[in-house]
C-alpha cells in the first residue's frame, strides 16, 4: 500500500469513529450518553464512552466526609482515606493470619498508650515509656509481614496515573486513570478495600497527616485564615471543622473509631462509581457486578447533623500571622437545588468570572487596591446550607479595610441597580461553553458525574442546571442580593501581620 492509501484508510477510519460520536443528535447531550445502573446492593454506577485513546478514568465517591464525624474525633474521615491505601487481607501482606496477631496487639498497646498520653502532665512517665517501647517493638515485628504500598505498586506498574484520593466535608473520593484494558485490576483492588481494608501502619500514618496539617494549613496563610473563617461562620454545624481535623483530636485518632466510621459509611448503597473512557459499558458492568456485587449493603446510620441556627448579627475574626494581609467575607445561603443557589452561580460569575467581572475591574484594575479578588458559591460544601464567599488580597500599601469597603460597594450596587441583559447573557454564554469544554476530559467528566450524583442525588443536575440558569432575570439577582448580602448575615475574617 502506498503512503497515500494508508492515510486515506486512516481518515476513513477516523471519520467513522467521529461519525459514531457526532451522529447522536447532539454529541454533547450528556444525559443521553450516560449509562446508569444500580446494583442490587444499592451501588450506583454511571458510565460514559469516549474513544479517543484506550484509557479510562475511574471515580468512586462515598457520601461520607468530615461532617459525619463525631465531636472529638475530627480528622477521622481523612485519616481513613489514607489508611485505605495500606492494603487489604490479600493485598499488602505476606501472611495475613500471622500479621493479624501482631496488628491486634498494636491496636491494644496503641490504645493504652493514647489513654495515658491524653492525661497530659499527669500521665505516668514510666508507663508512657514502656508502652511506646512496646509499640515500637510490635511495629518492627509487624513490618516483617507487610508488603508496603502494594496498592500503589499495582496501579503504577499497570500504567495507572493520577492515583489519589481526597476527603472533603461532604464526600470521600478515590480515583485513578488506567489503560482501558485494566478495569478488572481496579475492580479487584477497590472492591476488596471496600470489604477488607487492613489498617496496618496506622500510627506512622497518623504522624504523616500531622505533617500534612503543618504543611498545608499551619504554613499557608490563606488556608490558616480559611480555617478560622469557617470556624466563625458556622457556630454549630460541622462545616466549622477542618477536614484534616483539629490538631489535638488528630493526635489521638484511633483504629477503633476509624473502623466504625468505615463500617458505617463505606456501604455500597452510600457509594457512586463513574467510569468514563474507552470502554464497552456491557463488559464494564459485568466486571463491576462480579467484584462489587458481593459487597453487602446495609442500613446507613440515622446520623443527626447539628443545624446551623440563623445568624443574628455580623461576626468578625482576626488572625495574627507573619504574612501580608488578606480577607475573607462570607454570607449564609441555602444549598442546591434551591433556586437561590442557581442565582448565586450567576452572581459568582458577574462578580469574579474573568477580567470583565465587576470585582476584578473595580478593585484590581480601576482602583488598583487589590492584588486578587475571587468569589465562590457553595463554601465549604454542598450537602448542607453553605456560604457565598469573597476572597481578596490588598495591594500594598492598601489595606483590608479599603478592599472590604470596595467589595461592599459592589454588593450594594447589585441590590440597587438591575444587572444589564448583556451582562447576564455573557454569564449564560460562559456557563454554556463550560459545559461543552468539560466534555473534553475523561477524568473531568467522571469527577463531575459522580460528584453531582453523590451530592445532588442525580448527575442530571449538570444538564438541568443550565436550563434553570437560562431563566434567571435581572430581578432575580437584585432580589437575591437584597435577601442575603446583609451585615447581620455576614462573617468577616482578616489576616493581620503579627508585629514582630
Amino acid at each position: 500500500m502506498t503512503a497515500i492509501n494508508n492515510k486515506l484508510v486512516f481518515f476513513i477510519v477516523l471519520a467513522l469513529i467521529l461519525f459514531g460520536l457526532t451522529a447522536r443528535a447532539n454529541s454533547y447531550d450528556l444525559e443521553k450518553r450516560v449509562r446508569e445502573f444500580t446494583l442490587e446492593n444499592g451501588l450506583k454506577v454511571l458510565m460514559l464512552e469516549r474513544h479517543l485513546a484506550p484509557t479510562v478514568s475511574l471515580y468512586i465517591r462515598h457520601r461520607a466526609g468530615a461532617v459525619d464525624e463525631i465531636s472529638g474525633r475530627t480528622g477521622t474521615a481523612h485519616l481513613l482515606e489514607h489508611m485505605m491505601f495500606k492494603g487489604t487481607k490479600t493485598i499488602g501482606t505476606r501472611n495475613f493470619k500471622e500479621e493479624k496477631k501482631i496488628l491486634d496487639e498494636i491496636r491494644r498497646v496503641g490504645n493504652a498508650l493514647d489513654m495515658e498520653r491524653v492525661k497530659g502532665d499527669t500521665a505516668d512517665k514510666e508507663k508512657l515509656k514502656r508502652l511506646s517501647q512496646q509499640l515500637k517493638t510490635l511495629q518492627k515485628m509487624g513490618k516483617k509481614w507487610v508488603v508496603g504500598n502494594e496498592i500503589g505498586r499495582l496501579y503504577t506498574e499497570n500504567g495507572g496515573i493520577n492515583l489519589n484520593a481526597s476527603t472533603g466535608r461532604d464526600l470521600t473520593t478515590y480515583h485513578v486513570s488506567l489503560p482501558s484494558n485494566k478495569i478488572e485490576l481496579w475492580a479487584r483492588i477497590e472492591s476488596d478495600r471496600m470489604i477488607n481494608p487492613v489498617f496496618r501502619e496506622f500510627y506512622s500514618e497518623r504522624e504523616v497527616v500531622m505533617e500534612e496539617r503543618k504543611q498545608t494549613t499551619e504554613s499557608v496563610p490563606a488556608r490558616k485564615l480559611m480555617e478560622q473563617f469557617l470556624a466563625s461562620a458556622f457556630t454549630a454545624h460541622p462545616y466549622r471543622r477542618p477536614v484534616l481535623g483539629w490538631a489535638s483530636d488528630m493526635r489521638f485518632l484511633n483504629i477503633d473509631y476509624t473502623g466504625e466510621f468505615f463500617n458505617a459509611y463505606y456501604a455500597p448503597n452510600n457509594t457512586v462509581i463513574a467510569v468514563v473512557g474507552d470502554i464497552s459499558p456491557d463488559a464494564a458492568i459485568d466486571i463491576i457486578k462480579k467484584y462489587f456485587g458481593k459487597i453487602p449493603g446495609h442500613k446507613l446510620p440515622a446520623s443527626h447533623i447539628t443545624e446551623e441556627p440563623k445568624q443574628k448579627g455580623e461576626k468578625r475574626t482576626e488572625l495574627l500571622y507573619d504574612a501580608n494581609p488578606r480577607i475573607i467575607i462570607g454570607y449564609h445561603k441555602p444549598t442546591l437545588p434551591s433556586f437561590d443557589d442557581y442565582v448565586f452561580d450567576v452572581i459568582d460569575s458577574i462578580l469574579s468570572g474573568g477580567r470583565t467581572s465587576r470585582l476584578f475591574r473595580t478593585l484590581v484594575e480601576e482602583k488598583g487596591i487589590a492584588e486578587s479578588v475571587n468569589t465562590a458559591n457553595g463554601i465549604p460544601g454542598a450537602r448542607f446550607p453553605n456560604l457565598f464567599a469573597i476572597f481578596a488580597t490588598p495591594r500594598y500599601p492598601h489595606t483590608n479595610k479599603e478592599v472590604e469597603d470596595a467589595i461592599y460597594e459592589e454588593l450594594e450596587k447589585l441590590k440597587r441597580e438591575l444587572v444589564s441583559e448583556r451582562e447576564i447573557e455573557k454569564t449564560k454564554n460562559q456557563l454554556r461553553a463550560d459545559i461543552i469544554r468539560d466534555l473534553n476530559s475523561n477524568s473531568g467528566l467522571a469527577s463531575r458525574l459522580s460528584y453531582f450524583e453523590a451530592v445532588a442525588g442525580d448527575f442530571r443536575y449538570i444538564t438541568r442546571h443550565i436550563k434553570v440558569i437560562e431563566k434567571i432575570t435581572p430581578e432575580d439577582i437584585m432580589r437575591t442580593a437584597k435577601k442575603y448580602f446583609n451585615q447581620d448575615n455576614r462573617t468577616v475574617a482578616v489576616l493581620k501581620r503579627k508585629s514582630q
Partner: protein
Amino acid sequence: MKRIRFLITLIFLILFASVACAAEPSPLINPDDIRYQPLTFTPPKAERVVLENGMILYILEDHEIPIVNISAIIRTGSIYNPEEKEGLAEITGDVMRTGGTKNMTGDEIDDALEYFAGAIDVSIGMESGSATLSVLKENLDEGLDIFSAIIMNPVFDENKLKTAKNLKIEALRRVLDEPQKVAFREFRRLIYAGNPRGKLPSIDSVGKIARDDLVRVHGKFFYPGNLMMAVVGDITRDEAVSKIKRYWGAWNRKGETAKIPYPKAKQKGATNYIFKDVPQSTIIIGHLTPEKKNPDFYPFTVLDFILGSGGFRSRIIHEVRNNLGLAYSTGSFYSGRSGYGIFGAYAITKTSSTAKVLSLIMSIINDVRNKGVTESELSWAKKSINNRFIFAFDSTDQIAVQQMMIEYNKLPENFLTTYRTKIGNVTAEDLKRVAEKYLPPNRATILVVGKENLQLKIFD
C-alpha cells in the same frame, strides 16, 4: 477391585464436596495474575504544514465537541532578560494579552472575548513563550481577529503596563508569606547560579521596566520563523490552513534569535539555609543532570522514578513518608530539557526532624550509587513508565502540541515511537552508572528553609 475403586471415588467426591463447601465463595484472584486483553492503538498524528513566511503549523482535526484550540509556541523567555530588568519577559507576555492592539483596546478585547466565552492567554516563561486561543467553532473568526492582532500588533497600553507591574510587585512581596514558594524560588536561583536562568525578578528590577522594553521584546522575538502553532479541534485541515494564511500570511518580519548558554553542573556543592519562622523545614537537594537528547535521559528517567517520582513505592517516599511518617510531601523530580536537565529530591518535615530527613535522603541516593537497584525494582519502574505512556495521547490537543514541542526542542522525529523501547533497554548497570555520574553528594546544591540552623540571609 471394582468395589474399592468405587469407594475411593466416593471418598473423593465427599472430600471434594466438603472442601468445596468449606472454601470461601470464590477466592479472590491475585491481582498480579489478572490477564488483560492486549491494547492496540495507533494515535492520530497532526499534519505539519509550513507557510511561505516560515510559520510552522501542526493541524489535528477532532470533531467531538464544537471547540477550536490554537497553541502557539515562541522561542523567547526570561533567559533573554537584559541585566537589571528581570521580570521583563513575564510582564511582556501579560501586557500583550491585556494592553490592546492597533484596532481594539484591552478592555474591548476582554468584553468581546468573554461575551462569546472565548479564552486567550499569553505567557512568557523561562525558555519559551506561549499564546493560546480557545473558542467555540461559531466564534472562530472573531477569536482569530483578536488572537492574531495580539500576536502581531500589540500596543502595550501604559495603564495596563502599570497594573501588570503593580501586580507582579505585590506577588513578589507575597512570596515570603509561604515557605514552599520561598524554597522553590531560591532553589532555582542557587541551582542556576551564574546562568541567566538563575536571575529572578525583584521589586527593584520590575520597577525599572518601561513600555519601550516591552516593545523591544516583542519586536525581537515575534516573527513567523520564530513561532510554531498547533491548531486542533472542530475544523478541517484545509479550513485551518486557509484561515491561518488569511490572518498570518502577509506577516513577513524577519529576525534571528540568539542562543543562550546552558547551565553547567556544579564542581562543588553547598548547603544553604534560609530562616523562616514556620513549624516545618523545606529541604531540596538538587543536581544538574542529562539533557533530553542524551542517551542517559532514559536510565536517568528510570532512576528518578525509583528514587522518588514513582509514587508511594519509590524509595524516598516509601522510607520518609510510609515507614517513618516524617513527611506528607516528599519525593523527587527530573526534567530533561534542551541542553541540560534538572533533578531534585525534596521533603517537608517538622523542624525537629530536619537533619534526620536530609541525611536520610542523601543516604538513599548514595545507596543507589553504591549498590545499584534490584531487578524487581527495575522491572517495576520500566513497566510503570511504559504502561502509562499511553496517557501522552489522551487528548488531541496534547498530541498535536507534543509533536510541535518535539520540533521546538529539536528532538529526533522518532522520539515518541522509540521511547518505550529505549526505556525497556535500560539495565541495572546503567542506573548505577548514571547515579554515580550525575548525583555525586559533594556536588549537590542543598537548600533548607525553616527554623533549623539559624544562618539567616539570602533573600533580597
